[in-house]
């Protein structure tokens, strides 16, 4: 079935594509519909020639056209968009069946689909119409991939292995370029390739472009394999930096080729070496400069949060273009820009913006990655580039692989001499095997100048073959190989506070040990950098409030709490769903029990964490959460629950019985910077008053002979919507579960008011209360109906976010107070800080009326 579906999708793809052709065809001459098929071939060619033929352009207008066919106005963007769509659909097809992708790497499949698409174009046009144009690749497809990769780079890992990465990227690349070039030239001289018009310099140039280990291919393959993090960062970091180095090398050799053999003397060579370093380090430096700029900019973008994320993308792109303009290494520039700024912008920007940025970059990067692979396939379908030379092609393949291995093993041997944890042979082998060539090599080959290098097409074809060989063959074999060699896999380390805390402790211990041993080791440098960063860099690049709250342990804590809260809600919705609102008592109890059982060992304090969650779901920026004492306070609650269990239970019982809704905790806020929480002592007072009142009532009623029905007071509220006599016609009750209404409005209302609010909504005018159960409640309520109270509610309901909040979690406050009795700690001192300021003022008045 799956395959059939896939096939259908491929057909759909083809359909999409042919529509593009047809659209073009239709345009060429809309009258010759019968010739449509013959025209299709020429139509797809986006040549200017067809523009002249276009129907509407040539014909003289005799009457006002209502609609006209304007293909040529949109041709280029239209084709681009169509191609993007097609490529993405390809990815969709590839990802349809995971049993295929489990064996076959996605990148390889995309290339193969590219072949098919290219074949279709070829079949229609009898020529290659579309291919990967280097300019497009380098300016529109590559930057976002590199930016994404560097922005999401595990920073610490990258910098702690920077030495090894640089050695591999710089020395390794030079080694590859040099040896492949020289070995090929030697073989050529030895007569292995027949007669070719290639000089030694051209061979070196070819070697240089062949040495680019492609990050795109590497990420695509290694992400599926999950090797251990050190290996991953070595391969990935190398591939990223090595692109920059390759481009630099390529440019140097290209310049040499243009100069021509005889003109190259020692001075030129030295200049070449100097330019290599200037270009590489200049590019990196430029990237750092841009990173500083970005970080500083994000300090002040608070008011334009909507486009905050855009700044990073644009500035990152600018760093790429600027480097290109200064003929520095653009890839290195954008890489370092991304790596260096991530920490500061993540701290400076709103959490939402960070997520936006992350996802936007992912969309762009994955999108263009897909396009690159598809087009690597499409580009192959071209008669012209296939100049076959068995010797040249096979030898290139051989040398590329062999010298890669030699280089990796040698450099790792050197590195292992001083590495704390040596890279073992299996990892080294995988590193060598991970030398996938990709689009960068192709792009560089495609911009070779045919005038200077007569055998350009042979080189281009060979590059493609090497790319296919490495991406498809090595890609497929990578996974089995990793399994077979038992390469250490990445440990799926979940974020734990213990881990974070001990990491910190370990760091301190190691530094201390180094101090005791009296040597300046890595930890010494790390610490001094941290000190320096804390003192100066953060001061410059971080917002002051972000600076205060950047502690990773607390960050982990916050994140964990958010996660728990999410699970809690999902679980609740899955299990309790709406049933537990309707069937209030049973369902909620069940849910609570189940949850407690299931999560007993995983997340014991889940209930307590709910409080944290509330702040999260309102999307309050972390910074403001932290600024505010509330989270700490509500977190504190779970400490309380450890100690004060019985307290809670009684409180819970009490509240349950008396319809009292706790609102001290879990106060969702509607303003970003301001929290309102009711005062806790107040709550207690209320409970007390309620109880007293109820007792008075029952006493009175007992005296008067009215049925007290104290117990029932809880239910009517719940059942009222269903009861015919409840208050079906109650105008105030728009919400089916009316209680929520005032629960929320309670936020800003003073606590005592809510108490009044409550009965009122249960028996508002018009509803004939036949049920004796209501009586006690009713009797108490009259004072509450008075206007001051109502105006208050009016204000409250006017607050838009409160409505939103209601929609969000229909059961939030009410139910949770039942579900998580722990949270309604009667003593959260915390809330005092947040206490509603109105409360104290209003209190006396209302209280009087009530009593």
């Amino acid at each position, binding site marked *: 079935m799956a395959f059939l579906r896939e096939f259908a999708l491929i057909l759909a793809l083809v359909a999409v594509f042919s529509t593009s052709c047809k659209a073009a065809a239709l345009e060429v001459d809309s009258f010759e519909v019968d010739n449509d098929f013959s025209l299709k071939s020429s139509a797809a060619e986006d040549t200017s020639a067809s523009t002249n033929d276009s129907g509407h352009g040539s014909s003289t207008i005799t009457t006002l056209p209502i609609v006209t066919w304007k293909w040529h106005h949109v041709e280029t963007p239209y084709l681009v968009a169509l191609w993007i769509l097609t490529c993405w659909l390809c990815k969709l097809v590839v990802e349809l069946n995971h049993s295929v992708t489990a064996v076959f790497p996605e990148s390889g499949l995309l290339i193969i689909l590219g072949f098919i698409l290219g074949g279709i174009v070829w079949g229609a046009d009898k020529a290659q119409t579309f291919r990967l144009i280097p300019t497009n690749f380098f300016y529109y497809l590559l930057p976002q991939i590199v930016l994404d990769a560097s922005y999401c780079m595990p920073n610490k890992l990258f910098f702690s292995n920077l030495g090894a990465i640089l050695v591999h990227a710089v020395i390794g690349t030079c080694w590859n370029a040099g040896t492949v070039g020289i070995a090929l030239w030697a073989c050529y001289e030895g007569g292995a390739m027949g007669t070719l018009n290639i000089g030694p310099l051209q061979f070196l140039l070819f070697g240089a472009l062949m040495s680019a280990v492609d990050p795109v291919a590497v990420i695509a393959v290694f992400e599926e394999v999950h090797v251990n993090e050190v290996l991953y960062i070595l391969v990935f970091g190398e591939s990223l930096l090595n692109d920059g180095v390759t481009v630099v090398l390529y440019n140097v050799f290209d310049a040499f080729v243009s100069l021509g053999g005889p003109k190259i003397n020692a001075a030129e060579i030295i200049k070449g070496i100097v330019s290599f370093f200037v270009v590489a380090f200049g590019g990196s430096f430029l990237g750092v400069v841009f990173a500083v700029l970005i970080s500083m900019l994000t300090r002040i973008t608070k008011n334009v949060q909507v486009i905050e994320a855009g700044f990073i993308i644009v500035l990152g792109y600018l760093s790429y273009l600027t480097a290109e303009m200064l003929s520095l290494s653009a890839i290195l520039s954008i890489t370092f820009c991304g790596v260096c700024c991530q920490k500061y912008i993540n701290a400076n920007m709103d959490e939402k913006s960070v997520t936006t940025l992350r996802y936007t970059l992912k969309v762009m990067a994955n999108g263009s990655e897909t396009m690159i692979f598809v087009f690597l396939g499409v580009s192959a379908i071209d008669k012209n580039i296939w100049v076959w030379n068995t010797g040249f092609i096979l030898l290139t393949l051989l040398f590329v692989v062999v010298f890669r291995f030699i280089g990796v093993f040698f450099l790792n041997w050197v590195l292992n001499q001083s590495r*704390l944890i040596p890279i073992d042979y299996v990892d080294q082998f995988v590193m060598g095997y991970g030398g996938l060539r990709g689009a960068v090599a192709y792009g560089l080959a495609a911009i070779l100048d045919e005038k200077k290098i007569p055998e350009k097409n042979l080189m281009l074809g060979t590059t493609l073959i090497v790319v296919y060989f490495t991406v498809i063959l090595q890609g497929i074999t990578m996974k089995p190989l990793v399994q077979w060699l038992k390469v250490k896999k990445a*440990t799926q380390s979940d974020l734990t506070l*213990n881990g974070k805390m001990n990491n910190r402790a370990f760091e301190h211990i190691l*530094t201390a040990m180094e101090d005791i041993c009296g040597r300046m080791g890595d930890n010494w440098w790390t610490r001094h950098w941290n000190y320096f960063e804390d003192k100066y860099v953060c001061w410059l690049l971080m917002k002051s409030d972000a600076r205060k709250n950047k502690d990773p342990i*607390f960050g982990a804590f916050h994140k964990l709490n958010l996660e728990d809260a999410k699970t809690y809600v999902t679980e609740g919705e899955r299990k309790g769903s709406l049933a537990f609102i309707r069937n209030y008592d049973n369902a909620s109890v069940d849910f609570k029990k189940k949850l407690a059982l299931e999560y007993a060992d995983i997340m014991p304090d889940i209930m307590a964490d709910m409080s944290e969650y509330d702040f999260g779901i309102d999307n309050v920026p972390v910074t403001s959460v932290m600024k505010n004492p509330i989270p700490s306070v509500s977190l504190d609650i779970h400490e309380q629950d450890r100690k004060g269990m019985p307290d809670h239970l009684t409180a819970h019982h009490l509240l349950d019985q008396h319809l009292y809704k706790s609102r001290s905790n879990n106060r969702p806020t509607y303003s970003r910077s301001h929290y309102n929480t009711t005062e806790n002592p107040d709550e207690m007072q209320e409970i007390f008053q309620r109880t007293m009142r109820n007792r008075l009532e029952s006493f009175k009623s007992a005296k008067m002979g009215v049925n007290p029905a104290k117990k029932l007071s809880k239910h009517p509220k719940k059942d009222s919507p269903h009861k015919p006599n409840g208050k079906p016609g109650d105008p105030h009750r728009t919400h089916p579960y009316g209680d929520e209404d005032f629960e929320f409005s309670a936020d800003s209302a003073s606590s005592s008011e809510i108490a009044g609010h409550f009965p009122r909504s249960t028996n508002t005018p018009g509803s004939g209360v036949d049920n004796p159960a209501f009586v006690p409640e009713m009797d108490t309520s009259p004072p509450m109906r008075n206007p001051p109270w109502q105006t208050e509610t009016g204000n409250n309901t006017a607050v838009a976010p409160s409505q939103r909040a209601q929609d969000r979690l229909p059961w939030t406050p009410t139910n949770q107070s039942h579900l998580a009795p722990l949270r309604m700690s009667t003593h959260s001192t915390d809330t005092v800080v947040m206490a509603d300021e109105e409360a104290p003022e209003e209190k006396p008045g209302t209280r009087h009326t009530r009593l």
Partner: protein
Amino acid sequence: MGSTNSTLLKIPNVEVLMRETGFSPAHIIRLHDRFKALDKEGRGYLCPQDFGAIKELAMNPIGDRIIGAFFSPGKETVDFHTFVKILAHFRPVDKDRPKEPNSPEPINSRSNKLKFAFQLYDQDKDGKISRDELLKVLRAMLGMQVTEEQLESIADRTIQEADLDRDDAISFEEFRKSLEKVNIDHKMSIRFLR
């Protein structure tokens, strides 16, 4: 080489020490030099004050605990052998070292490294990290960045995360379990110069 040997000879039982700790002669000499440098008065042992004199160590938030780890309970001094043995915890695990079945567990084994870390928390040596002990360490490490309440809730959550038997404390076994996935060898090793 001559000076090497002569320095080594000055250290009693150096063979045993090297076998126990796995340090090379060059390491031992380097550490011995350092030991002598720390031991300003040339007493042949170190006092807590000697460690306190290391400027950087004073800046270390858990520095005093680390110093304390060098001194076995009740003792006020540490001699060269103990000094080297403590430091040997932080030698990276060597893979190519032949594994003799009946040889004692090397000092730098994973669980010994963990034990060292554990005892920094467990100051009262009851084999458990209590909430208070954890809180103290957290307070030292987090400094001014979080409020006391936050600190407490972090401590609670940390304990709950690791606490398997629900006694509100982290035993060594629980400590080890909680760090099961952490590459201790990477995180608790430093490079000793040869």
